[in-house]
């Protein structure tokens, strides 16, 4: 019960931060409308047979949710900066409850971001069969696990000043390699198959007739989740000093 009280206050606090709405939710939406609204009548984007508003809804769904998950890092770095993390350590709050609150908050953020993009897509005429829609959302949720761990790890390893550039840089790089903006080919495609963002994009592409993940996808996501979770746990455990 009290573990959930902490999560509840975390959510309340997160949703009161106005800047968050502008950057975490507003930015992907603006980007989406800028790209898709003028091209809403492109029904066969790049000869793929896919309508452009749908294609970019999928791309931004992966980008927006990735960004939302990683925003856990900013919040953690901010709490460390003011000494709050140390204060929490001298309460009975367990590591498990602490991390659960961070992960749940990140997921709620990602869920909002995704929901808003679905609505934005609908306003531009995107419609997906319910089955695919559910499959896509579920697989995206699983594909976001490594990013939750990465956000938490960065939050505990970096200072508030460096989390911004680090998160922005990493998300941009992963989004690019993963094929968020345009399909990657050749060498990049080979590398891309080993990064989690690629599979996040694949999950989003279920909406455009993609087949989701094969064995390789699951292995990559599980492996990254395991490694990044271990790093996050290590980062949290050693982060007891004054910042």
């Amino acid at each position, binding site marked *: 019960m009290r573990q959930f009280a902490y999560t509840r206050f975390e959510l309340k606090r997160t949703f009161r931060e106005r800047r968050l709405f502008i950057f975490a939710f507003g930015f992907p939406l603006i980007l989406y409308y800028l790209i898709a609204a003028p091209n809403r009548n492109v029904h066969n984007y790049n000869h793929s047979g896919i309508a452009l508003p749908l294609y970019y809804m999928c791309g931004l769904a992966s980008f927006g949710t990735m960004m939302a998950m990683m925003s856990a890092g900013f919040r953690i770095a901010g709490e460390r900066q003011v000494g709050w993390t140390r204060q929490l350590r001298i309460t*009975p709050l367990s590591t498990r409850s602490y991390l659960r609150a961070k992960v749940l908050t990140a997921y709620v953020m990602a869920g909002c971001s995704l929901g808003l993009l679905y609505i934005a897509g609908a306003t531009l005429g995107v419609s997906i069969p319910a089955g695919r829609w559910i499959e896509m959302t579920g697989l995206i949720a699983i594909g976001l696990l490594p990013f939750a761990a990465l956000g938490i790890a960065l939050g505990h390893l970096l200072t508030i000043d460096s989390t911004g550039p680090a998160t922005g840089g990493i998300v941009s790089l992963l989004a690019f390699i993963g094929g968020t903006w345009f399909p990657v080919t050749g060498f990049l495609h080979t590398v891309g198959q080993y990064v989690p963002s690629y599979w996040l994009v694949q999950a989003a592409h279920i909406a455009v007739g993609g087949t989701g993940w094969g064995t390789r996808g699951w292995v990559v996501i599980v492996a990254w989740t395991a490694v990044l979770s271990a790093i996050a746990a290590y980062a949290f455990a050693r982060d007891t000093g004054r910042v």
Partner: protein
Amino acid sequence: MLRGLEKSWRGPAGPIQAVRGIDVSIARGETVALLGPNGAGKSTTIDMILGLVRPDGGSVSVLGRDPGVAVKEGLVGAMLQTGALIRNLTVRELVSMAAALYPRPLPVDDVIELVGLDEVASQRTQKLSGGETQRVRFAVALVGDPQLLILDEPTVAMDVEGRRAFWQAMRRLASEGRTLMFATHYLDEADANADRAVLLARGVVVADGPTTEIKGKVGTRTIRATLPGVGEAELGALDGVDSVLRHGEAITLVCSDSDRAIRQLLARHEEIRDIEITGAGLEDAFMRLVGDEEIGAGDGELAL
């Protein structure tokens, strides 16, 4: 209970020994002041008591348990030295959140009233003054109903009124049988509020005892009086007098045995008047025990 506590940090010029063998045992219900100049090892010692830092040597036991266990059981509350508040919660929400982390918290409204935050209870934490922020941090440390409450320089940034209210609350907590430990730079606070003072310098305990005993340790008393026409040499020759200072008709005698000195003075100089005998303050004791040059090195932050 601290036994042979040691801790070094890696510094640019090799290891820096922050704490070099501290042995302190504190009984339940005591109010103890931890004194010392900057760099004496106060905060490092507190971090080790709270389990935030692992000692290199020695052991810490808190209420008969490992520090981590005592913290997990909610027996310890602390106000750390560095710290602001997280944003976007009201004072009441933040204290409620802290309360929710403990198994047996105090009623939130009682705590808010005790620390004097009633008027700002509905304000967001980012809108508070420095002194109010400190009081919220005090409330957060307190709301879990800890048996041991540790405060690292609690009154920094509080105004006079805030300090008065703070110590009033502390006395009430002490009267309820809690063990209180606070680190401070303000010697008058230690003098007025602690049963006992532990003086740290360069990572070791240089004095430990009731504040009265520490003051007594210095062993000097000062006699001030008005006494014209008697030479400094003659006064200095009296038994029990260490040094003499004269400003016009006023004399100041620092005495190792003021009782003997005053008897002789009264016997020989009937005209002596305005006599005042004072004990050494904790400040004198502190200067004597820690060493003047040490305080000078404390980059001027020490408030004496």
